[in-house]
């Protein structure tokens, strides 16, 4: 009976989630062009090629910058918005849904809308900058600015998630502790810094991990806003470009996927390790 109910799902998970992990490791030892019938076993050559080329510094650097800035940005802005949402004014329910909305929208659609806003010729941003007597920077052609642009849009899309999770955290803070602090004469800012922030540490840790995992897997915005990945090629995008871009280097792409998976695994294990030791204040 158990198998009759659960087997279809379990088989699907085994075939399409677990099998690829093993296949990737095997593919990563091959010199293999996608679509070609033959492949040569080359051992760890793909990894050696990756780490000894300029790609490694560039891709790992881009991945690090993209991940750190998007995670930090979404979390800090998310916390600030959560504080505003936590105030007792009317309309917070609506504002809460509004800031969450971009999180559920298609990255492709959102990416195009922002690409238009950033357009150096006819975008809203260029128009505002002209009003200030400035030239619009070349967001699309300059690799560094491309990365800035994608990061900004990614934060726009994801900060609502952080805000809503932080809001839930704020609302579950023990009221008696907060009131005791205000009785002791702690003002709002003081209460926030020495009470709320430490008490929110489990929420912060949860967000840090989930946001890192999703930033490391960010694909849609990068693909639609910077198809060539100039300046924006993170590990996941590099793996995509190598296999499905111009080169069809399947083995090489698989080795990058394995590296990405190893990083994701470390982040996940960190989560499992620390969740156990979650600090309880009350």
């Amino acid at each position: 009976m158990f198998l009759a109910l659960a087997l279809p799902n379990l088989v699907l998970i085994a075939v399409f989630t677990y099998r690829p992990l093993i296949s990737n490791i095997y593919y990563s030892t091959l010199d293999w062009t996608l679509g070609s019938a033959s492949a040569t076993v080359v051992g760890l050559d793909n990894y050696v090629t990756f780490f000894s080329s300029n790609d490694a510094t560039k891709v790992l650097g881009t991945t690090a910058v993209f991940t750190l800035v998007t995670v930090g940005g979404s979390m800090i802005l998310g916390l600030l918005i959560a504080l505003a949402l936590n105030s007792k004014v009317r309309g917070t329910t609506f504002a809460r849904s509004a800031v969450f909305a971009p999180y559920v929208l298609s990255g492709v659609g959102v990416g195009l809308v922002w690409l238009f806003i950033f357009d150096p010729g006819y975008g809203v941003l260029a128009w505002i900058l002209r009003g200030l007597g400035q030239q619009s920077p070349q967001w699309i052609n300059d690799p560094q600015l491309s990365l800035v642009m994608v990061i900004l849009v990614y934060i726009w899309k994801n900060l609502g998630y952080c805000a809503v999770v932080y809001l839930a955290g704020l609302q579950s803070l023990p009221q008696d502790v907060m009131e005791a602090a205000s009785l002791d004469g702690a003002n709002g800012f003081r209460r926030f810094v020495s009470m709320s922030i430490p008490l929110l540490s489990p929420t912060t840790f949860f967000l840090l991990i989930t946001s890192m995992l999703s930033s490391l897997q960010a694909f849609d915005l990068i693909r639609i806003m910077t198809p060539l990945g100039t300046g924006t090629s993170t590990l996941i995008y590099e793996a995509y470009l190598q296999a499905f871009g111009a080169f069809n280097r399947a083995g090489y792409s698989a080795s990058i996927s394995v590296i990405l998976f190893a990083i994701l695994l470390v982040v996940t294990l960190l989560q499992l390790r620390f969740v156990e030791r979650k600090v309880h204040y009350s």
Partner: protein
Amino acid sequence: MSSLSPVNPDPSAPPLVHPEAFVPRERPFSARNLLQTIVGGYIPLVVATMVVFLPLLWMILSSLKLPGEIITTDLQILPDSVNVENYNIAMTTVPFAQFFINSTIVTVVGATVKVLLAILTAYALVFVRFPFKNAIFILILVALMVPPQVSILPNYILIAGMGGKNTLWGIILPGLGTAFGTFLLRQHFLTLPASILESAEIDGAGHWRRLWQIVVPVSVPSIATVALVTVVSEWNEYIWPLIITDRPETMTLPVGLTLLQNSESNASGWGILMAGAVLVIVPILVIFAALQRYIVAGLTQGSVTG
């Protein structure tokens, strides 16, 4: 108690509160309080809401503009007239109606099967006796953490080898296994009181009847949450359909939009691209507006349980 706390020697007096803690409530309309509410409460909320809505509003307005109203150094905010020409062009340049149908089929079939599988697996995990159930559950939990992006290449090779390239089943199949829905429903089923099932068992109802006549009807909100989150992610899914389709006949909306972007690469194409973006974004925005409670709850699940 700190020395700052007022001393209240009379035990019959109202509960001890710091007088300042209630000042705003005693004078709710004081100028200071009003200013505080506006600066501390409203301004950040209004700014945050605007930052979200203005780009989306701009998308809709631009989708109704003629090229001349977009290609101008002076920003024109409102279109001169409501003009659906961009939508017509988007539909004829690429088969947008077909993309829409494909996306709908992929979303409806994919989400239905996933929700069904999640219900069945979660029921089995919670209510059916079986050895190694915990080990199986851990394997499902771990699958939840395996990013679909790293599975793209092996799944492409498998599905393409099975002849699934440029087919709707090829788009749907690899995503059907569901760890997320199973996990969420399992957590909910565990909270159901055992007594309601025991009485049904005494009445001779088998697992199948217990599932559909007792467990499912009392779990509608949780199932709705799983269903809605699944619908949203199926509709927005990009990397897999992008790789497994290269012919317009089987493309989904996000992939079709990429195709449109390639053919409308000059500035006059912005209005057309915005029309395309509207067709991708607005259906989900409508569903979200109507049922946001479930969607937000489903997507932020885990934050409370850690």
